[in-house]
C-alpha cells in the first residue's frame, strides 16, 4: 500500500513550512516536498509607494534579519538618487552601513548557533525532547547560554547605534545614512564597562568554532554523511576574490570549484538567474539560466560563501578558513552540516570587521549623503546571513515604484532544502512501518542547517515542533507521532 508522510514543522495547522513524503508499495520514497505556506504579495503592493519608503518598508517582511532588507533596499535607492552602485557613498555612510551589517551578521549567526543549534549538539539529535531546547541549554549550560545571549545583545546594540533601533531601524537612507557614530557610542563597545567588549566577542567566536570542531571530531561519521550532496554555489565576492558581505560581484562555482560565471556586476543579475514556479509551494525555485532549471539550482549562505571566495580579509577568520578549506581538500564542501562550521567562521569574521570599523575615524565623519543624476531603476544586492538577497525597483517621474522584483536568501536555497529533505527521507524512512522521533528530528536537522527563514517562523527561538502522520492513499491515518 502506498503511503504519504506529512511532516508539519510548525504543527499541522499553524505556521509557515511543512514537509510531505510519499512512499510506494515497497516502502520506497517516491516524492519529498518542502512546502512554503506563506505569501505576502510585496512585489505588487509596493507599487505606487514612493521609492524612499523602500528601506523602511521592505525590512518589515522579516524581523529576524531586517537589516539585510533595509540595506539591500537602501542600495537600490542609492542608484535611483544617482549615488552609484556601491562606490558612490561617502566613507562615513558606507562604513556606518558596513558596521550595521556586520552587527546584523553577528547577532543572527549567534542566535542560530546558541539558541537553535546548540541544543542538538549538547543533548544529541536523539536527546531527550524535554531538555533539547534553548531553555534546556539555559538551565543546564548556563555559561554557554549567557554567552549566546550576550553575543546576540552585542550585535543588536551595534544595530541600535547605526540604525537607530534594534529591529526595523531607519539609519540607511537613499544616498547614505542619517547619522554617524559618536565617540561615546563607540566607546561602549570598546571599553567593556556596559557590556563585554569587541575583543571578548572575537574570543567567544573562536571558542564557538572550537566547540563545533570538537563536536565534529567526535561525530565525524554522522556529520560528514548526513545529507551531503554536490551543488553549485553562489555569492557576492569582492573584486580581488575576498569575502565581502556588503558588496561585490556575482560569482558562481560548480561542485568541483569550476567557475560558472565570475566578476559579474549584479546590475545584470536577471541575465544570470531565473525562477521557476511549482504549484505546491509559495516559494519560487531560482536557478542559473545558462544551466537550466534542472541542473542550474545552487546553494547560498555560509557554506556557499566559503565555497566561492578565495580568502577572508581578516587574519583570525582567514586562519579558520584555511582549516575549513583543507578539510574539504580545497574543493567546495558538499557537507550539509558543515554549514554550522562555516557560519561560525563568518561570525568570527564579523567580530573582526566590527573591531576594525569601530576603530576607524571615518565613522565620526560628517558627510552623510551623496546624490547625483536621478535614475529610473535601482538594484541592490547584499550577502544576508542566510545568503544572497536581491532587490530590484523601477520608479516613474513621480518617484513612485512601478516594478519590484525580490529574490530573498532562503528562496535561493529552495531546491537544496528539498533535496536535503529527500536525502534524509530516503536514508531514514525507506521500508519503515513506524515513524520514530529521531527520524523526524533528522529531517528537521537537515532543514535547519540552512537556517531557513520560512517567513521567519521556524528558526527564531527554538526548535520546530514536528508532527508526522503516516496515511494511506485514502487519507486514513495509519501511524502518528508527535514531538
Amino acid at each position, binding site marked *: 500500500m502506498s503511503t504519504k508522510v506529512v511532516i508539519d514543522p510548525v504543527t499541522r*495547522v499553524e505556521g509557515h513550512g511543512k514537509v510531505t513524503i510519499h512512499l510506494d508499495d515497497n516502502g520506497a520514497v517516491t516524492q519529498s516536498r518542502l*512546502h512554503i*505556506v506563506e505569501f505576502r504579495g510585496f512585489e505588487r503592493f509596493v507599487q505606487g509607494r514612493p521609492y524612499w519608503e523602500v528601506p523602511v518598508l521592505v525590512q518589515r517582511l522579516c*524581523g529576524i534579519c531586517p537589516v539585510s532588507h533595509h540595506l539591500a533596499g537602501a542600495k537600490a535607492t542609492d542608484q535611483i538618487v544617482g549615488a552609484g552602485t556601491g562606490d558612490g557613498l561617502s566613507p562615513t555612510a558606507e562604513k556606518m552601513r558596513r558596521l550595521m551589517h556586520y552587527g546584523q551578521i553577528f547577532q543572527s549567526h549567534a542566535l542560530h548557533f546558541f539558541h537553535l543549534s546548540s541544543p542538538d549538539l549538547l543533548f544529541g539529535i536523539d536527546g531527550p525532547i524535554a531538555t533539547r531546547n534553548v531553555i534546556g541549554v539555559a538551565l543546564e549550560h548556563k555559561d554557554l547560554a549567557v554567552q549566546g545571549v550576550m553575543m546576540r545583545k552585542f550585535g543588536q546594540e551595534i544595530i541600535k547605534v547605526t540604525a537607530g533601533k534594534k529591529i526595523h531601524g531607519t539609519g540607511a537612507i537613499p544616498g547614505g545614512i542619517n547619522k554617524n557614530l559618536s565617540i561615546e557610542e563607540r566607546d561602549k563597545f570598546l571599553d567593556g564597562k556596559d557590556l563585554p567588549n569587541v575583543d571578548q566577542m572575537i574570543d567567544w567566536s573562536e571558542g564557538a568554532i572550537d566547540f563545533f570542531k570538537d563536536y565534529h571530531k567526535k561525530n565525524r561519521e554522522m556529520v560528514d554523511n548526513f545529507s551531503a550532496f554536490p551543488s553549485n554555489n553562489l555569492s557576492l565576492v569582492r573584486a580581488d576574490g575576498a569575502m565581502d558581505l556588503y558588496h561585490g560581484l556575482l560569482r558562481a562555482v560548480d561542485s568541483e570549484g569550476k567557475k560558472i560565471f565570475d566578476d559579474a556586476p549584479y546590475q545584470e543579475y536577471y541575465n544570470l538567474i531565473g525562477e521557476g514556479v511549482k504549484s505546491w509551494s509559495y516559494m519560487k525555485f531560482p536557478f542559473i539560466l545558462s544551466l537550466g532549471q534542472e541542473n542550474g539550482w545552487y546553494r547560498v549562505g555560509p557554506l556557499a560563501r566559503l565555497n566561492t571566495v578565495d580568502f577572508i580579509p581578516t587574519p583570525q577568520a582567514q586562519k579558520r578558513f584555511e582549516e575549513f578549506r583543507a578539510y574539504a581538500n580545497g574543493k567546495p564542501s558538499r557537507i550539509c552540516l558543515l554549514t554550522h562550521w562555516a557560519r561560525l567562521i563568518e561570525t568570527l569574521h564579523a567580530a573582526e570587521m566590527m573591531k576594525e570599523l569601530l576603530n576607524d575615524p571615518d565613522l565620526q565623519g560628517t558627510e552623510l549623503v551623496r546624490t547625483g543624476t536621478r535614475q529610473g531603476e535601482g538594484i541592490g544586492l547584499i550577502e544576508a546571513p542566510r545568503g544572497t538577497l536581491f532587490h530590484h525597483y523601477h520608479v516613474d517621474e513621480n518617484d513612485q515604484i512601478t516594478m519590484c522584483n525580490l529574490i530573498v536568501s532562503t528562496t535561493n536555497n529552495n531546491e537544496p532544502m528539498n533535496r536535503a529533505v529527500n536525502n534524509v527521507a530516503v536514508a531514514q524512512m525507506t521500508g519503515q512501518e513506524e515513524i520514530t522521533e529521531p527520524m523526524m528530528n533528522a529531517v528537521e536537522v537537515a532543514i535547519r542547517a540552512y537556517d531557513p527563514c520560512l517567513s521567519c517562523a521556524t528558526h527564531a527561538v527554538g526548535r520546530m515542533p514536528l508532527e508526522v502522520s503516516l496515511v494511506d492513499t485514502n487519507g486514513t491515518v495509519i501511524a502518528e507521532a508527535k514531538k
Partner: protein
Amino acid sequence: MDKKIVATTSLAGCFGCHMSLLDIDERILDLIELVEFNKSPIDDIKTFTKHCDIGIVEGGCASSENVHVLKEFRKNCTTLIALGECAIMGGLPALRNTIPITECLEEAYLNGLTTKDNNPDRIMPNDEDIPMMLDRVYPIRELVKVDYFLPGCPPSADLIWNALTALILGKEMELPYEMIRYD
C-alpha cells in the same frame, strides 16, 4: 508561586515581535524562572497540552491557517495579548488590502522579472498541501476578543518585559508614555 503558563505564536507577522521579546537579553534567565512555556516556537509543544494563563499573538490573519491558530489561542488562553502593529492593525502585510489577492499572486508568479520567461505553463501555487490566502489581511480583534494591545513595530523589549511581568505577578502595568511607540 506557581509558574504562569505562557503560549506564543506568529501569524502573518515577520517574527520581529518575537525577536524583540528576545531583546530582553539577560532577563530571559529571570523570565524562565517565572513562566512555563506551553505551545510556542520556543519549545517542542505543538498543540496546547493545558490551559494557558497568557497567550501572545504576533501578526494578523492572512490565510485560513492563521484564523484556525488564532481561534485555538483564544480558546486555550485566559488572557490574550495582541503584540505589535500587525496583530493590532494588520501592519505592513495589510498594504495588500486595497488590491485583489489575484493581482498580488499574478505579479509574483506570472509577471515577475525573473519568473515570466521561466513559467511557460503559467503555474500558480494551488495545492491541497498549502493553505488558501484570505481576500485581505485581518487584525486579530476582528476575529476574536483581545484583552491587551501592546503597540509598536515591534514593541520595545522594555515594554514587553514590563507588561508581561506585571501580568505574571498580578500587578498593574506601568507603561510610561515614552515607552508607548508606534514605529
